[in-house]
Every structure is written in structure tokens, then in C-alpha cells.
């Protein structure tokens, strides 16, 4: 298992105290009369991969959208890298967002731009001091890291689903984020491509030293990437623990995720 000492420290049995990069306290958010997250609290530690599992509609995506303030919570606090996200003004929020990478479920590549332009777009705005040559080198290097070096001048519509996800991941990591938020990174992909994306998530963590929250209901992705896991149910933490604890849990809901489906 990955980062054994980290998990041990989370259980409170070790003297190590890894730094918290995200700290969420009593987060509440709802749409109309429908509560989505109820008093949700969680911490993400440095260089940790936290997998959040849950059925559709359990509030997983809403949670990471609150972290980057794409959605405003009804109450509760979200501290990211020591900053209270909900109290930041627009300029400080933009500065904080520069340190966060967000991989959208749909990839969200700008479809009027080539892959190179897609990567250039955040780079030009976040790494303003880079020369064009340095930028080109960085783009080529990042695309090579995700195995897409030959797609530089292609349009997103010319790529397959898996390639689009990789290109989107490349756009996210090209600006060297400290935190990565993955919204269902393997949804809609075949098992082989899903495995490739899962191993890319691990490669990104190793190479860029990122801390990540991975929202998924793909158990294979969770197995491949998780240092720690949280199961969300009806907007609350249903279970928190290591992959091993989840797999050994006798709980029916947990097992419904882990046991192979009967045909």
C-alpha cells in the first residue's frame, strides 16, 4: 500500500504530523429544499491521495466545486493552503486557484482551440514570466508525460475520449499545481484506458508532489490511487479509512462497491 506512514498518522498512531493542505469544517450546501452536503468535514494532507467514493448524487462533485468556489456553501469553512476560500476577494481567489488543478469529468477542453492552445491558455495567464520558447518546451514536455506528444496541433474533436482526458490532465498539470482535484477521472472510459488514467494520477503525484482529491465511483481507480478513502452517503461521511479497512468492511453499502457484480 502507498504511504503507509501517512495513513498510520491519520489514524493517530504515529508521531508524524503531515501538513494539512485542505481543511473543511461543517460544510453545508443544498439546492433549493434539497440538502446535498450536511455538516461535512474532511482534511487533505500533503502529498496524499484522498479518494471520495459515493453513489451518484451523494454530493462528491459539489464538494470539490466548493473547494475552488465554483459553488458557494450555505455554511461551514473551507481552508485551502491556509486561506479561508469563502472570505477571499476575487484577486486572492484567482491567486489561490493558480495553485489548484481541476480535472473536470467531461475534460472541459476548449473546443475552439488546438491542444497546444489549450495548454498555452492557463500557462500564459499563470506563468506570465515564461518566454514563448520556454512555454513551448513546457507544453511539449507535459504532453510527452501524458503520452500525447503527437497531438500538439490537433483539435479536441479529433481525439478519443481517453486522449481528451489525458490532454485535459496535461492542461491541468502544465502550471505545476500543488493540489489536484479529479472529478470522476475514469468515467466513460474503457477498463484499459481507465487503468492508464489511474496510473497517470499516481505519476502526477510522484512527479509534481501534489496532494489530490479523487472523486470517483470506479473502484479500480480507487484501488490504484487511494492513500485514504471516504465514503459519502446522503451528504455525510459514511465511512473513512484505508483501502484495506474498506475492503474488509462488512457493511452492505461498502461491499456493494467492492464486490464484483453478479450477472
Amino acid at each position, binding site marked *: 500500500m502507498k504511504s503507509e506512514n501517512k495513513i498510520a498518522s491519520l489514524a493517530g498512531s504515529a508521531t508524524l504530523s503531515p501538513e494539512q493542505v485542505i481543511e473543511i469544517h461543517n460544510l453545508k450546501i443544498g439546492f433549493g429544499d434539497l440538502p446535498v452536503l450536511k455538516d461535512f468535514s474532511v482534511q487533505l494532507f500533503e502529498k496524499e491521495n484522498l479518494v471520495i467514493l459515493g453513489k451518484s448524487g451523494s454530493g462528491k462533485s459539489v464538494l470539490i466545486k466548493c473547494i475552488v468556489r*465554483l459553488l458557494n456553501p450555505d455554511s461551514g469553512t473551507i481552508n485551502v493552503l491556509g486561506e479561508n476560500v469563502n472570505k477571499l476577494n476575487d484577486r486572492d481567489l*484567482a491567486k489561490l486557484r493558480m495553485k489548484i488543478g481541476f480535472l473536470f469529468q*467531461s475534460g472541459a477542453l*476548449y473546443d475552439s482551440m488546438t491542444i497546444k492552445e489549450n495548454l498555452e*491558455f*492557463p500557462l500564459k495567464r*499563470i506563468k506570465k514570466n515564461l518566454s514563448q520558447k520556454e512555454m513551448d518546451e513546457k507544453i511539449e514536455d507535459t504532453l510527452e508525460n501524458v503520452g500525447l506528444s503527437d497531438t500538439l496541433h490537433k483539435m479536441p474533436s479529433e481525439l478519443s475520449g481517453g486522449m481528451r482526458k489525458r490532454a485535459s490532465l496535461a492542461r491541468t498539470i502544465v*502550471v505545476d499545481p500543488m493540489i489536484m482535484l479529479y472529478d470522476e477521472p475514469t468515467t466513460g472510459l474503457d477498463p484499459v484506458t481507465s487503468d492508464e488514467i489511474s496510473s497517470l494520477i499516481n505519476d502526477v503525484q510522484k512527479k509534481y508532489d501534489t496532494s489530490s482529491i479523487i472523486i470517483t465511483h470506479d473502484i479500480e481507480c480507487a484501488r490504484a490511487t487511494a492513500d485514504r478513502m471516504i465514503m459519502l452517503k446522503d451528504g455525510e461521511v459514511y465511512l473513512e479509512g484505508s483501502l484495506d479497512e474498506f475492503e474488509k468492511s462488512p457493511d452492505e453499502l461498502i461491499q456493494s462497491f467492492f464486490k464484483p457484480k453478479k450477472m
Partner: protein
Amino acid sequence: MKAIGPVRKKIPKLPDVKKRAIKLSENVIKKTQKANRFFLAVGEINLFFWYTIKASFSRDFEFREFLRQCYLVGNKTLPLITITGVVIGLVLTIQARPVLAEFGAVSMLPGMVALSIIREMGPVVTALICAGKIGSGMGAELGSMKVTEQIDAMEVSSTNPIRFLVVPRVMAATLMIPILVLYADALGILGSWAGANIKGEVNFVLFISQAFSAVGFMDLFPAVIKTFFFGAAIGFIGCYKGFTAGRGTESVGKAANESVVVASLLVILIDLVAVQITDMLL
């Protein structure tokens, strides 16, 4: 025989009163919710307008995107405007000529056509075509970006989507529509000359000089000024409808459709106000 006694009003039973009270309160809640939604929409459009104005004056103006949008706005509508401009002039001439001939005033034809094209037909017809072509395009494009989370992705990568997407589009529409209107006016007068030539040869230079001798500065100036407002309204409504589209794919079509309807209506309303103001000034 009827019994004589005090007339008694039928008093509703207690459960009936309760039911009526519940129904009444439900109606009140529904009405309040409707009013709430209306005021929320008004607030939202005002906020969007304020953010657009604020972003227009920001230091990091997206000049390349602005030029790209100018090219797209002009390029998209040029063939349509060309055809429409010529046809307006041609049709106006063909229809006006017999009426003027009855009064022996055919010589007034170039001036009359030029005046109606420059003052009203050119700006309004061009703006309505642009509302259809540009407004729907902007609504659909931004709506689709919203549905596929591209706008969110932009926001997360520390880029103000209003500055990058809305400001260049609104500015491009504001600048390009007056140019397209002047182009349509010119083609309209050319079409009118072609129409005049159907019934006999008319000298081009004479026709043009007669047309422009009837047009004064105060005919051209207000007509051009109002086209800037047409452009701004078309660009703004297209962007607003796209930006506030829902999350489903059907909302893209809805955004495009609403952009055309609202922008066309606004063009007509702005024209009405502009005509009133011009009348007061003249």
C-alpha cells in the same frame, strides 16, 4: 309554506375554512415565488451587466480575442447583409416608383429611397439579421461552453470568463454592426439604382448625387449612433443567455433561441426610443 324567521347565512364548516386557508396561502406562496424569480432575474442581468462593464475597463484586455470576434462577426454576416442590402434598395425602388409616378415625382425617388434606407431600413434590418445570426451564435457557443464545463475550467484556471468571453464579443458586436449597417446602406442605394434602371437607363452619378442631396448630417448621425446600441444589445443578450444557460444540452438550443427573440425585441425597442429622441432634437 316557508317558515318565517331570521335569514341565516350558510357558515362554512371548520374543515372547509381550513382547506380554503391552505389554498389561499399556497396561492400567495406561488405568487411570491414568481415575483421572487422575476426580481432574481432582474438582479442577475444587472449584475452581469455590471461585471461586463467592470471587465471592459480592466488592464488585461483580450485584444487578440477581440480581433478574432470582429472577424467572426463580420465574416459570418457579410453574405447575408450583402444580399439583404441590395434587395431592400431594389424592392423599395420598384414599389415606390409607380406611386411617385402618379404624382409626377419620380425625380424624388433617389432621395426618398436613400433617406428611408439610411434612417430606418438599413439599420433595423441589418440589426435584426445580426440578432439572428450573431446573437444565436453567441448564445449557442457560450451555452455549449457552459454545459461542457469550459467556462468553469476557465474560471478555475484564474481567468475571468467575462473578460475573456463576454467583453470581446460585446465590443466586437458594438463595433462591427455599425460598419455592417453602413455597408448595407451603400448596397441598398446601389440596389435602388439597379431598380431604377429596370424602367429605363439612369445615370449612376446623377442618381447618387440626387440621393445624397436629400440626406443631411442629422439623418446619418442619429442612425449611426443607434446602431452602436443595437450592436451592444445583441452582443450582451447573446452572451448573457449563453452564460446563464442551464446544465442540460437542451438549454443550448433554448439559449440560442432566447438570444434571438430578446435581442430582436430590444433592437425594435431601442429603435423606438432612438426615433423619439431624434424627433425631439430635430
